[in-house]
């Protein structure tokens, strides 16, 4: 169904494009004939009105040249977007092939249309457009969405693999091709060593992230993910550096001029370019983080600052012939942690979405350029060159993967298995980067540029289509899932229980890393960097009010569906139905099995989920909300019945120490929780609403206290400063209570207890500044906040 829709959409767009092209031809003919009007303003109306008294004033004019470039570019992007919509509508497609396939097909389609209608002068990509406008967004997005903790934990392996892998591939392919070129029979004698090396460097620019979406559901372990990600990230930078260096070499016209000194200088340059770029990026990252500290009153420019500074780092590095790509990557990585804490919620969402959008647009355009140049007359097909290129790409990648990983496995605590290495080898899919670099080869230096372009295109098509489509089945095959026999319901339940259990215990164990370095950095970060770069008095993001808001909505839903009645958590032995053994028919068993599979909670994924073309839809949040609310209610229910937890802790346990939380200096409470957070992994696990749960636990524990302790808390309530979010919390607390009221009847004193504790608990929570980082797990948080603000008039009655 969706495919049909997809198919019908593109003819419409083809039609649109054709119409546009026809008009452009018509107008270009018109413009050619009416040459005298060319010197006037482009609009033909003015021309007609001013100096040509003979012509009639036309009622309807067409001036396509004026808008040609933006018009066509927009049309292309729209076409690609429609294709993507169609692609995702058909649910199984994204799991079958990477999205790059789709983009290439769209590009080829557009290219075909342009070629077919013989359209003059389509917009063409040139070197400055690519390097200045198209490349930075792609690299920025890669750097920004990279999970920092696993990256830095594996940084040794990643650097080893990415840098050396790129070098080995580039040099290997280049040298092998050079030897092939020496063979007279292939007619490639005029391609010298430098050109081959250059070609080798550009063809080794891989884009493995494009295939990540394909095998996402096979639970790839974290290290493997990071290797692929890290390689993708650094690979672009390294190949561009190599490329530029070799171009510089090529410009020294005579091959014999190159002396060993030059080669050494080249290597030194390589290192300096890389490190210098990173340094620039880090500096700019810190500057932008510092500036976002002051933007609380004008949050609309926060995304602007982020983007402009990243772009500036790129440009500044390029000015000095340092690696702009590595600069922008380093800038994004540095900036992310601090910016995320400083900027407002809506800015944060905007930044994420805008980044995805920009990179998506860039990549689409590059693929369309690629399609345009595929269907065209500028090809030179040389069997030997193309075939050997393809072969050598695979061979050298295999060599580099297995050799490098063999060595690095000696030093790793958790070595990569052969299966992992196979996956890494097979994910060497080329992408937009190689094509751009090939396309931008200067024709003067490369008389056989067309051949290079053709070979590059073949490699890209081959790897993206063949490898991209088959990597999914390969990964699933390597995963060696057990035979799909029907498990009994018992087994299903117990298996899921064990999965949850395992995930839970893994969380208890935490992440293990090289503690010393990480701790030192954390201490340094905590002591100096955060003080400088993070805002003081963060806007009280009312994490608790948000939580209450979620709860209220969920509580309402749950009440309405009849789940959350007080009998749901019945006292043991009360609800035991005494009935005979029911023999369930097979259909019942089947239906039970279906119910289980579709409704059981998913195990929390610890491995990262990155999709290059889309942002995570965050479906696990609903599940998380349900679980949290259920726990909250369980606690409250058991509180009501007098024992604190279902498993029989004595009632009325006075945990005096917990009293200190709301009374003590809220600042220190916030800082305590902040310090506590550092022991967990903080930055890169967006799914852990730890502060929310701290609020919950505090509320839960506070509820254990006797009623007479409410009075001291009331004094705290009075003494509280009135700030905006405090009002918000009040209001939503009221609404929440309204929801709770309908759920369970409570004795009145306890009501107040809930009221006060919630607020005071909320207050100490509000001061915790790290909530920004940990709490970004709802997409509708922005809505939540706006909703809260709109309720502030109601507040006055309190």
């Amino acid at each position, binding site marked *: 169904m969706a495919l049909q829709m997809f198919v019908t959409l593109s003819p419409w767009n083809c039609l649109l494009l054709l119409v546009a092209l026809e008009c452009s031809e018509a107008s270009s003919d018109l413009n050619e004939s009416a040459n005298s009007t060319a010197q006037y303003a482009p609009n033909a109306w003015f021309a007609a009105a001013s100096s040509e008294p003979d012509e009639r004033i036309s009622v309807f004019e067409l001036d396509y040249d004026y808008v040609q470039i933006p018009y066509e570019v927009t049309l292309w992007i729209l076409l690609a977007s429609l294709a993507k919509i169609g692609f995702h509508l058909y649910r199984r497609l994204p799991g079958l092939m990477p999205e790059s396939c789709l983009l290439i097909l769209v590009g080829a389609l557009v290219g075909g249309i342009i070629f077919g209608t013989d359209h003059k002068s389509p917009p063409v990509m040139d070197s400055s457009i690519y390097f200045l406008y198209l490349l930075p967004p792609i690299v920025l997005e890669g750097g920004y969405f990279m999970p920092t903790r696993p990256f830095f934990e594996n940084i040794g392996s990643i650097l080893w693999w990415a840098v050396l892998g790129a070098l080995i591939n580039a040099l290997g392919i280049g040298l092998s091709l050079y030897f092939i070129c020496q063979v007279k029979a292939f007619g490639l004698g005029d391609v010298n060593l430098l050109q081959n090396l250059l070609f080798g460097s550009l063809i080794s620019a891989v884009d493995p992230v494009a295939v990540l979406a394909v095998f996402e559901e096979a639970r790839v372990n974290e290290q493997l993910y990071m290797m692929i990600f890290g390689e993708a990230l650094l690979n672009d930078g390294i190949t561009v550096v190599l490329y530029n260096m070799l171009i510089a070499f090529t410009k020294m016209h005579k091959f014999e001029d190159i002396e060993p000194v030059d080669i050494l200088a080249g290597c030194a340059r390589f290192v300096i370019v890389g490190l210098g770029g990173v340094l620039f990026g880090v500096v700019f990252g810190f500057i932008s983080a510092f500036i976002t500290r002051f933007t609380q009153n004008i949050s609309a420019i926060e995304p602007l600052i982020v983007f402009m500074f990243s772009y500036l780092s790129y440009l500044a590095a390029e000015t000095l012939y340092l690696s702009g790509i590595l600069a922008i990557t380093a800038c994004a990585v540095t900036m992310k942690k601090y910016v995320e804490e400083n900027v407002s919620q809506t800015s944060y969402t905007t930044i994420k979405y805008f980044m995805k959008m920009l990179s998506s647009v860039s990549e689409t355009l590059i693929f369309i350029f690629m399609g345009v140049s595929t269907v065209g007359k500028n090809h030179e097909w040389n069997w030997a060159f193309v075939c050997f290129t393809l072969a050598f790409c695979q061979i050298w990648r295999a060599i580099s993967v297995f050799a490098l990983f063999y060595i690095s496995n000696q030093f790793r605590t958790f070595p990569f298995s052969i299966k992992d290495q196979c996956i890494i080898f097979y994910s060497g899919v080329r992408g937009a980067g190689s094509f751009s670099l090939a396309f931008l080869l200067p024709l003067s230096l490369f008389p056989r540029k067309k051949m290079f372009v053709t070979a590059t295109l073949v490699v890209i098509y081959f790897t993206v289509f063949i490898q991209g489509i088959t990597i999914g089945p390969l990964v699933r095959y390597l995963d060696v899932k057990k035979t799909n026999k029907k498990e009994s319901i*018992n087994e299903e339940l117990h298996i899921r229980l*064990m999965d949850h259990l*395992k995930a*839970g215990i893994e969380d208890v164990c935490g992440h293990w890393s090289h503690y010393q370095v990480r701790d030192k950095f954390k201490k340094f970060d905590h002591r100096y960097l955060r003080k400088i770069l993070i805002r003081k008095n963060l806007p009280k993001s009312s994490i608790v009010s948000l939580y209450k808001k979620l709860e209220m909505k969920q509580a309402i839903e749950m009440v309405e569906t009849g789940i959350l009645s007080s009998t749901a958590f019945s006292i043991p032995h009360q609800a035991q139905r005494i009935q005979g053994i029911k023999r369930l028919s097979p259909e*019942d068993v089947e239906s039970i099995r279906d119910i289980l599979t579709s409704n059981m909670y998913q195990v929390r994924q610890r491995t990262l989920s990155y999709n290059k073309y889309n942002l995570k839809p965050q479906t696990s949040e609903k599940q998380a909300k349900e679980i949290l609310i259920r726990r909250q209610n369980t606690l409250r229910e058991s509180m009501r019945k007098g024992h604190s937890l279902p498993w029989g802790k004595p009632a009325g346990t006075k945990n005096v120490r917990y009293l200190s939380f709301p009374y003590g200096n809220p600042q220190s409470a916030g800082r305590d929780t902040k310090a506590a957070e550092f022991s967990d992994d903080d930055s890169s696990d967006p799914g852990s609403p730890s502060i929310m749960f701290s609020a919950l636990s505090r509320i839960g524990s506070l509820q254990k206290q006797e009623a007479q302790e409410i009075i001291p808390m009331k004094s705290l309530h009075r003494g509280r400063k009135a700030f905006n979010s405090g009002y918000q919390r009040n209001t939503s607390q009221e609404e929440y209570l309204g929801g709770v009221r309908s759920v369970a009847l409570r004795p009145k004193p306890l009501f107040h207890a809930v009221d006060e504790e919630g607020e005071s608990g909320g207050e100490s929570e509000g001061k915790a500044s790290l909530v920004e980082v940990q709490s970004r797990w709802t997409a509708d948080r922005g809505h939540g906040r706006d909703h809260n603000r709109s309720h502030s008039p109601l507040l006055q009655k309190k």
Partner: protein
Amino acid sequence: MGSRSSHAAVIPDADSIRRETGFSQASLLRLHHRFRALDRNKKGYLSRMDLQQIGALAVNPLGDRIIESFFPDGSQQVDFPGFVRVLAHFRPVEDEDTETQDPKKPEPLNSRRNKLHYAFQLYDLDRDGKISRHEMLQVLRLMVGVQVTEEQLENIADRTVQEADEDGDGAVSFVEFTKSLEKMDVEQKMSIRILK
């Protein structure tokens, strides 16, 4: 706070813990580090609050029960040996363990039987050695979304108990539990790679 590096000397009874749980020295050090990181107020033991601060457990359907399993017999605190003892259940089973099985020594904590026993205890809250239908129902409720009606849940609980129950007492004993999972690769399911 001082230096964060743990030394073996800091861990009390390191040797006896190692013998009991089978952890390597490096793993024990890491676990001690983690223990100290979780122990917010440097009390020397962990309370429920400390474990509840682990955010990811909050959204685990079994989070509460996992936390509770660290506090056997109603105690309020767990010290480092107790902490490690629980985690030892999840140590991967290596072949050397089964080969050098000394019949006189107690079974290692990460044997299949002990792993299953740990999982069994998650169900069996009242520690009577059986999973009653009610307990099964409670676990089901925890693990299933809100769309499933109470009646469906009861059906499922019935069916689950019925499948495993062999002696007809309406509850699943540990032996029956083990039997129902004999085909499952429990060792692999309940092993965490990093806990070598």
